[in-house]
Structures are given as C-alpha cells and as structure tokens.
C-alpha cells in the first residue's frame, strides 16, 4: 500500500523531502502557493561560500523529483484531522487524504520598510539583499548606477528586540560578505563597507570567504550598528554609525546602501499553522516536539516540519533537515501508522 504524503512548500526543503520520499516508494503530493517551485532559492543568483549558481542547485533538486505530483499556485483551503490521517482540501479543488503531512513553509524576508531609520522605500538608493541579488541575476535596477561608495548593513530585522526580531538569521553575515565581493567585482573602483555588530561566520569555508573579502577585495568591516540614514539633495546617503573599535561616531556619504534583511517566520506558513492549530514559539517559528532529538516531529502525530519553518537555516542545513524528515516520516509510516490496534499507544510511546 502506498501512503499519501502531503508536502506543503516547494522550496529546497519541500523539494528535497519530496524526492527522498518518492524514492522510498511513497505517493508524494507537493504543493506550492507561488507560480513556480524553488522558493527563495529561485530568486537568488549565486550561493555562498563557493559562488555556485543558485539555478544549478535548484535545477538539480527539481530533476530529482522524478514523478512527484506537484501543484503550483495552490494553497490549502481546509485541513481536517481524522483518526490517523489528514483530510486536506486544496484551493485547486483537489482533496487529499494524507497519512503524513510535512510542513516546509520556509521563511519571509524581513520587511525593511519597518526599519524606517534606514530609509528603505523612502530614499532611492537604499536597497535590500534580495534587491541586490535580483540585480545580479537580471542586471536591471535603476537604483544601482555605478556607485562609488557602497555600504552593507548587517542584522536588519535580526537580533533586534525593537523590531520584535530577537533571533539571529544565520545566513546574512556570509551573504553580506559574498555580496560585498560580488559588488566589488562588478564595480572594481568602488569602496565597500560592511557595518556589523559581530560576524557570525560559523560554517565551513565561511571564514576563508571573509579573509578573502578583506585581503583580495579590500572590503572594510566596521564594527557598529548604523544609527540612521539621511539623504542629500543629490540623492547620496549620509550614514551615521558608531565605530565601536575606534570608540568614535562615524559619518559616511554613500552612493548605495544594502540592507541585509533577516529571516522572519513565513506569513503563509502561519496561515497553514492556524488551520492545523500548530504550536508557535515566542520567536514566531513552529515548535518541534520537546527534546532536541525530535528535530522534525511536530507536537501533532503525523505532522512533520522541515527547513526554515522551525527557525533560520542555511541551505545545506535545510537540505539535511529535509532528508532527516523523510527518514522520520518513513519510520512513522512503517512502524506506527499501520498498527491500527495499538496506534494510540505507539504514538504515546514513540512519537
């Protein structure tokens, strides 16, 4: 008997988990609310630390799908938990009776408009990491016009109690270093500054990237948060910050400012969570079942979580999480689910 498994979210986590479960012989249904698969990965140009094209990685993930039924432009209308399974009505009219559900709803980028002191949406030459990545990809953005001085602001909507975003978004430090290098490659004459609180370059090769940025590209790292940004009449930006190494206030005139928007819990993921009455932790991400060993199990039996739905993750971490979720789902569907008589007891003991 082939169990139905519904996977919510067609980003890297959803794609990877779908491919793995399909290979194990399950009947996988993948839904994605936007018109195309790939999530944020589809909008990115190149990936840290090696600069691999994001399209190549995404292409590889999609190629592995191998017969997974997927629906784009599709959301969930209603979810009903039956005795063991989930009865899910989709917005495209299809109803799925699913024995396990994997929520891989990912994240939203922090809306930089909320940090009004940085002037995103108010000043023309303030952009976000996503805008810059789109420019790398398409080459068209009127705001980027041969800038001579470029600044990167780390931790926008991360580690910021005032915006209600306490958690670290994990990926922005490395992304900023990567983007700083790329922008320097695009404008070799430009001066590039990174304003940071502290750099969290924890992953393999990240530190190398950071050293390369300083040695080979002359990117200047300034420890101190940007306080406020104002605009001159000619459209250039005046950035006020504090250099906490030199213990001095600092004022710089820049042509382009890039805000490293952090990760926030996905709004559409939250809508799905509401339908399922899933527990959300204080930081806004979904809660996993208690205990650090229960990484992909939600508190509800048969409901699994993968990727950034349970907190900020890098791409390799997300993929590993998705594979782990596939193994967990397989274990649940072979060991607990089929035993109709002892189902409840097994859930109590082993979920």
């Amino acid at each position: 008997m082939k169990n139905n498994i519904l996977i919510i979210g067609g980003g890297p986590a959803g794609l990877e988990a779908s491919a793995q479960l399909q290979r194990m012989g399950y009947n996988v249904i993948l839904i994605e609310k936007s018109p195309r698969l790939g999530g944020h990965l589809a909008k990115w140009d190149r990936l840290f630390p090696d600069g691999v094209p994001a399209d190549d990685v995404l292409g590889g993930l999609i190629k592995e799908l191998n017969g997974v039924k997927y629906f784009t432009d599709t959301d969930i209308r209603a979810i009903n938990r039956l005795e063991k399974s989930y009865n899910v009505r989709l917005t495209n009219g299809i109803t799925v009776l699913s024995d396990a559900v994997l929520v891989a709803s990912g994240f939203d980028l922090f809306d930089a408009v909320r940090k009004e002191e940085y002037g995103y949406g108010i000043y023309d030459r303030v952009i976000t990491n996503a805008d810059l990545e789109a420019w790398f990809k398409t080459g068209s953005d009127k705001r980027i016009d041969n800038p001579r001085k470029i600044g990167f602001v780390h931790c926008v909507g991360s580690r910021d109690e005032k915006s209600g975003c306490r958690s670290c978004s994990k990926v922005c430090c490395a992304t900023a270093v990567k983007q700083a290098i790329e922008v320097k490659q695009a404008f070799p004459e430009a001066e590039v500054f990174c304003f940071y609180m502290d750099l969290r370059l924890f992953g393999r090769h990240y530190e190398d990237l950071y050293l390369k940025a300083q040695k080979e590209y002359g990117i200047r790292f300034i420890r101190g948060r940007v306080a406020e940004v104002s605009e001159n009449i000619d459209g250039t930006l005046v950035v006020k910050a504090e250099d906490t190494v030199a213990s001095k206030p600092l004022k710089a005139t820049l042509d382009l400012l890039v805000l490293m928007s952090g990760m926030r819990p996905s709004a559409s993921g939250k809508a799905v969570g509401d339908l399922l009455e899933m527990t959300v932790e204080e930081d806004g991400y979904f809660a996993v079942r208690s205990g650090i060993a229960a990484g992909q199990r939600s508190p509800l039996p048969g409901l699994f979580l993968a990727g950034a739905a349970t907190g900020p993750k890098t791409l390799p971490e997300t993929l590993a999480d998705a594979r782990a979720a596939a193994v967990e789902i397989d274990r649940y569907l072979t060991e607990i689910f089929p035993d109709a008589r002892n189902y409840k007891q097994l859930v109590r003991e082993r979920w």
Partner: protein
Amino acid sequence: MTPLNLILAAQAADPEVIDRIPSGYSHFVIPFTIGMTFMLCWIGVGCVRLLAAIPRADRLKFWKSLFIPKTVVRNLKDLFGDCLLHVKIWQRKPLLGYMHSAIAFGWFMLIVLGHIEVALFVPARLNVARGGLFYPIFYRYFVWMNPGHTTLRGSFFFFLMDFFLLYVLTGIAMAVFKRFRSIVLGMRHTTKPSLADRVALYSLWLIFPLRLLAESFTADLSGGSFLTVGVNHFWHFLFGDKLWFTPCWWAYSICLGLFFAAMPFSRYMHILTEVLWILLRNAGIKPSHPRKGVAEAEIYACSSCGLCLDACPMNVQKKNLKYSSVYFIRFLRRHNEKKINAIADKCLMCDKCHALCPVCVDAPALRRAQRATGNNALPYNYSYLETGVSGADVPSKGSERGGVLYFAGCMTHLTPRIIKAVDKVFKAAGIEYSFADRDGGVCCGRPLMLAGRLEAAAKVIEANKKMIEESGCETLVLSCPICYKVFKEEYGLRGIKVIHYTQFINDLIASGKLKVEKTGERIVYHDPCELGRGCGVYIEPRAALGQAGNLVKARKEYDESVCCGGSLGSLTLDTRDRAKIAESSLDNLLANDPDTIVTACPLCLKTFSEAVSNSGRPPGGVAVKDFAEVIAG
C-alpha cells in the same frame, strides 16, 4: 445683627430648645473626643512640618498667593469644585461623582448645619471649654425640643439635617456596593485598601447608619424631620416605649473616634490635605523633592480612589497594576525605597493619571523627582558641546534673520518620511526655511529630564539655545512633540515663536497659503501624550486633518487618549510589555474602522507602524501616516 438678638431674646422668654442634660456632657463622647483631638494634633504638627520643608522662596510665594484676588477666587472655586462637589469625577463618571459628592458635600453640610443650629439655639455651647468640640456633633442627644414651641425655622433645620443625612446615606450605600461590583460605577480596577484604610473605611460605612439610628431613637425628644421621625415611629411600633438609645450614641461616637484616629494613617487623610494641596497647587509651587514639602501634600492629598488604575496604559496587563500612580504614592508615603524606585522607573510619563486625577496630583512629576534622586548624580561628559565640535551645523547668521527654523530632532531623524513630508508641505506653501539639524543636532534635553538627569539636560539645552538664538530666526517649528514641550517650557527663547508643525501647518491652511485637497479617506487622529496632555494641543491637528479627509473618532481621545507604548519616558519597561500597550492603543484607535491612523509624533508613528505589521492585519488594511504626510497628499 438684629435677628440674632431677637432670637436670643425669644429664647430667653420662651425657649424653643431646652438643655435635656444640663451639664452638656455624657461619657459616650469620650471616644470621639480622643479620636478627634489626636487627629487635630497630628494634622497641626504635620502642616507645620510640611510648610517648613518647602524652600523659603516657595513658601513666601505661597503666603503671597493667599492674598492675590485671582488666586483666591480660584482657590474657592477649586475647594468647592474639587473637595466637596467632585466636579472632575462627575464629568467622567456621573455615578461615581454622585457617590463622592454625596459623602463629601453631604457630610460637610451636616457639620456646617449642625454648628449653625448650635449657634442659633444654644450659642454658649460653641465655646470649646463648654464642650464646643463635641457638642455640635452630638447636639441631638443633649437637647430637648420644647413641645409646642417649635418654630418654622427649627423645622427648616430639622428638614435640612434629615435631607443631608439621607443624601450621605445614599452615597454610603453606593460606596458599599462599589466595594463588591465596582464596574457598575464605571471602574474596572479599584485599589487594595491597607489595614488603616480598612479600619477607617468600615467606620465610615457605619458612622451614618449609626447616626440615623441614634438620632431616630431620640427624635421624639430632640426633634427631627421626615427621616428621623419616621424611623422613630417605626421603633415605637416595634419596641413600644422601651428605647435604649444610649448604646447607639456610644456606637456612633466610637465609630467617629475610630475613623478620626485611623485617618492620619489611611487614605482618608486626603479629606483635609486636599485643601492644603489645592492652595499650594494654585500658588504654582512645584515639588523639588519626591517626598518632602509640596510632594508630601500631594502624597497625602491622594485619596487612593484608583481612577488612575484604569487610566494607566500599562494596566492592559494585570501584572502591571502595581506600577500605577496610586501605589507609587502609597509606597512613597511608607518610605518603601526599594519599591518606589522600581515603580518610578517603569512609568511611561504619558501623564494620563495626572490629567484624570480628581485632585490633580501630579504623580509623573513625583516620579521624575524620584528618578532625579538617583540619576541626577550619574556622570556625563558633554565637553564636546563646549569645544564647538557640536554635531549641529548652526545656520549662518544674518541670512536667516526673521525666518523659519525647522528643528527635526533625534526621533524625527529616525523616521525620515516626516522630514520629507514637512519639506514637501513647506515648499507647497512657499515657506523658505532653514533646517537646523539637517546633518545631525544635539538632543533637545527632554529625554534626559524625563530620566531625572536635570543637570545633564541643562547642558544640552544651553547648547541648543545658543544655536537657535544665533540663527536669528523668528519662528521655530518642531515636528516632535517631545522637543516641542521642552523648547516651549524650558528654553526661554525670547522673541522666538516656538510652534509645533501641526499648529504651523494649520495656520498655513487657515491663511490660505496652503491648499489641501479633501479626499474621502477615513482618518483617526491619535493624540501624542507630549502634544495633547503635555502641551494642550488638540484642536489644530484635527482642524487641519478635517480639511484633508473625514475625521472619525477613536474610542478614547483628547486627554483620555491612550499612550502608544513607545514613549521614551519609561526606563525599564520591556519591548513585549510595550507591544501589549501598542496593541490596546491601536485597538482604541480602530474603534470606528478608519482607513488611516494619523499621528503627529515620530515615536507614535514608529510604534503604530510596528504594531500594525505585528498585529497580523493584511498589508494595505490600515495605514499609519504622519500628520505632514496626509497634508502633503
């Protein structure tokens, strides 16, 4: 006074009132006399100590104020309005107002009328040596109405006494009811009484029913009107002729004695302290110490009524009730240093408790004074202000003479859309202006003042004052209410008109210099604390916004407006508590489904923008805009 002579003559001839107890004394008056004497001594000593603690200059100002006709009139008006009739409570909560005025005014009238009766019928007894302290209180016990000689005048007083007794009794009945179901009278939260409060409270509840009992038992001897005589007939109907009234008079006296003995330690001290506080307040004397002098008068004038509990924006969470002004004052009174500091630091300084206080106790000012006891001495280094490395680029002298100077302030610099919108509006109206802190300036000093750092504040105020005076401007426009308040009140800028941009822009519209196009946008205006309650600017922003869209009402507005929670007045309130306040304030504004929330303070703007995006409302639901943005269109 001929009438009085006539009265005396009439009495000598054919007395209306005869001493039932010729000595004019009975043992039952002892509890009352002890309680009353104790209270009078206590308050006498207290008054002297309090006045001695006020700085000499202030004290002189106080004595002088008692002879300034304008202040005298105001004092009389406030004493009647605030102490007796409780006009301020009437205006907000009529039922509560009735309750308070029934007890206060009713009791006052009973005392006054009682003394008038004694003065009319047995004037000799007003002499303290002959029992003047207690005789008028227990008048009805000591006298006997000469049957057949009761005049119309006597009956008139009987009626008045019974009328006011009934009036007080209705107030007491409501007070008892309020203890159990306060919400019916319009209060969600009430204060927890202390031990002395309870003793005084229960005595107070008993005083008037016992008075009715005592006076009704003697009503057939000493006279009475519709109430006491009626009840007297009822007793005769029940008990025949065996009326044991002495125990009732004893109980009445004991309750009075207990009440007055407990009074100095209870909230009821406000009854007398209010008088002193109103005189000090109207003399314009501000507290210089959180505990001594004027502050002490305020502390004891607090009636612990708890109206500030529902007013305080922090109390959307029940755990914050303990930070309310009423408890702050209670702990000040008890010298509980640990708690005072924690409470003083928590407050948002929105000033609503002060605005709604029935006796205008300025608790936020006391909190600031308390903060100053610790924080004023903290080190600071503003040497850069003197060496001229100031961040402020002083607009060049001469060229700006007579012009308009715009000072955005730190908070407006964090919300650059306000700066853009102000610029757009000024350009549209053809206003040439110079921008005092375009490239950064010095803080206005208000945040330091709110933190109790008065000396540090004086330094930055001095630096800014110099910059503004040297600019030679005629009008100083502020877009931040925090700056506006301090520029207006503390800077003493002579010859320069200090004006908030809502007022300035409203003037531009009124004088036809600025054209505003009216849209169908439903606008709700949020009164920023520092602008509304702080500076009394309520009308101008509304007038201007009314030209740009359709103004709708918030549930609470004007001086009842709810702080957004973003105030920099609080030193310790954390982000999550603030978010809760913002949520409730937002809820208050959205009562009538507006399209746009408009405010005139950069902090409110930021807080509401955050609150809307955190509230999970769909984007494009309700917009949060600055006043100038709406006017700029």
